[in-house]
């Protein structure tokens, strides 16, 4: 299958390793990955902060860029939710954007949805000999309804010990511009999340969204906790061969 990658602006700029991992993983599973270079940002920051018109213009850009894709894979649950849940709200019914999105939205997937639902694979042949804890991000959990898909993928990874995160469903406190507009509450939430992560005794915290990981990871790093974060794609892309190389 020819898969179009929507990398998202945060991953593109700050977490290119995640993007490379997605490419490596999907190619290893025998698929062709394309990267339409016109892509930029889904507009989530503008939309969530109340800047509707810029968000709508970025939605149009996305729809135009990916119009002809068979499947669009997004390694970020919040961006995938922005596209599927909020683009319809940004478009007037009957408009060009609405028509484009009606046809495009069902072909936009979070990475874990794509693997489990479309490629129908849970064992991707990965090897990752670490104690890992998974944080189900709000958009993955409540907006996309990823359910147990990420857990099924992680449980099939050889060498990986999956630990249980207490208070897992609670938000980490990132919330985009919330993290600076209400920095004190955001930090209080982040510290509690970091505390729960540390309590598990894990080495690695993983999630389906690097923005949440940037928040929890930034907190863990400030605390010199010794834990590292990894997008789920990086874990799933890791194989025994590659593991030996790093």
């Amino acid at each position: 299958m020819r898969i179009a990658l929507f990398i998202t602006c945060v991953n593109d700029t700050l977490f290119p390793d995640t993007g490379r991992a997605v490419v490596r993983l999907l190619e290893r599973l025998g698929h062709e990955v394309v990267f339409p270079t016109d892509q930029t940002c889904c507009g989530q920051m503008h939309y969530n902060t109340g800047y509707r018109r810029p968000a709508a213009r970025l939605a149009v850009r996305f729809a135009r860029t990916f119009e002809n894709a068979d499947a669009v894979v997004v390694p970020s649950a919040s961006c995938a939710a922005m596209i599927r849940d909020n683009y319809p709200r940004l478009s007037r019914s009957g408009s060009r954007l609405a028509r484009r999105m009606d046809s495009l939205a069902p072909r936009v997937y979070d990475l874990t949805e794509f693997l489990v639902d479309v490629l129908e694979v849970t064992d991707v042949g990965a090897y990752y000999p670490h104690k890992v804890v998974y944080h189900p991000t709000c958009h993955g959990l409540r907006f996309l309804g990823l359910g147990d898909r990420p857990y099924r993928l992680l449980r099939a990874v050889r060498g990986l010990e999956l630990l249980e995160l207490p208070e897992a469903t609670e938000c980490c406190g990132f919330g985009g511009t919330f993290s600076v507009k209400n920095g004190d509450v955001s930090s209080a939430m982040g510290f509690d999340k970091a505390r729960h992560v540390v309590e598990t005794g894990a080495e690695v915290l993983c999630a389906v969204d690097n923005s949440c990981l940037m928040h929890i990871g930034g907190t863990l790093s400030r605390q010199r906790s010794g834990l590292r974060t990894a997008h789920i794609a990086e874990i799933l892309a890791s194989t025994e061969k590659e593991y030996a190389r790093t």
Partner: protein
Amino acid sequence: MSATFLGMPPFPEAAKRAVEDSRTRHNLHKATHTIRAKRTRVVDELGDDWQRLRAEGERIKTHTLRHLDHYLERLEESVQRAGGTVHWASDAAEANAIITRLIRRTGETEVVKVKSMATQEIELNNALEAAGITAYETDLAELIVQLGEDLPSHILVPAIHLGRAQIREIFLQRMGEWGRPAPPDLTDDPHALAEASRVHLRELFLRSKVAVSGANFAVADSGTLLVLESEGNGRMCLTLPETLISVVGIEKIVPTWSDLEVFMQLLPRSSTGERMNPYTSTWTGVTPGDGPQDFHLVLLDNGRTDVLADTVGRQALRCIRCSACLNICPVYERVGGHAYGSVYPGPIGAILTPQLQGMASKVDEALPYASSLCGACYEVCPVAIDIPEVLVHLREKVAESKGHVSEKALMAGAEAVFGSATALDAVQRAAGLARGVVPRHLPGPAGKWTDTRDLPDVPARSFRQWWNEREDGR
């Protein structure tokens, strides 16, 4: 004068103080987690039926709001037919004037009150005090708040921010000023505290000739009003006095008695985490020889019609004041109710207050941002109010208003970068070159991030640079 929310700082500032208050943080964590667990248990046991109930609750409320003019007139007719008198109040001042006039007519200078959000909203107690009338709160938590000259911090549990040692202090120091004092050997044992309030309140119930209440529901076709409570104190107020004045927001209507079947399941399970509500009182106008013989219904608009005109925001009027959104909210859990600067705190307050009173003040326009948009409130709401959707809708109104110059510039800058892949690539290359010289502590608003969290390392190459180089190498 009783305490008031006037003069509170905007949310981020109030929240900063609140997150530093270790005692409140402890009390709130314990209380919200206890009630969350109870709710989860009684909601989960209904299985799929819960979602059907929720959809039905949403449908009834949406239908009623769409035909509110019709149902309001029907309610007025029904109440009058049953011997009650109906008054219409367009705002808080008008409602307070009507209630004051009705109490004065009885010649009484004291009233007992049933716990009511509508009377909190219009600050009735302050208005009555100015008119020389003393209003006694009889709900245990409201009593604690009133005696402590405090403010409510939760819709269902107004004294949730207080622990029992603090409540003991308040009872010992203040009860005597309002009536029968607390026994001098009062301990902080919950039974002892409840007994002290019982003895204190009993005198007031037996003495008072006038009661003021709100209502959880008003049934249009029968004219019946309902109050749901857990203590029985409300029932004392609803049955013993000669005159009863009920202040009810116009959105509290349901069309028929049988609609209550849905809400009698949704409300207790969502609010107190109980299968069935302990004290449900219903009254229809006046019944000769039974209960108050003079009944007045004050129907309150106070901004609700304006909310109804907003096609996105109007769903907030479906709210049945259960507090499930407060109890699940990670922001509320850490700051408590006072930081929201309104009688309606938490996620529902953040969408209701700015709609009811507008967003002209710094306090009100900060409320739509008091959320990480995590969606937990929407998930638990028994009438499916999409609170994150309304929050974003209200943020749009703030962003369209005057001011916020630096944020607007920042957003315009970001759009310029994201408006062109070439521009984004240029910014990424510049960032890659500047890596290593990014300071650990950023100036300005970004400092709010670096105060408590490290920044990620900027990579030397963006993903698209890597991709393009890979493609070129093929």
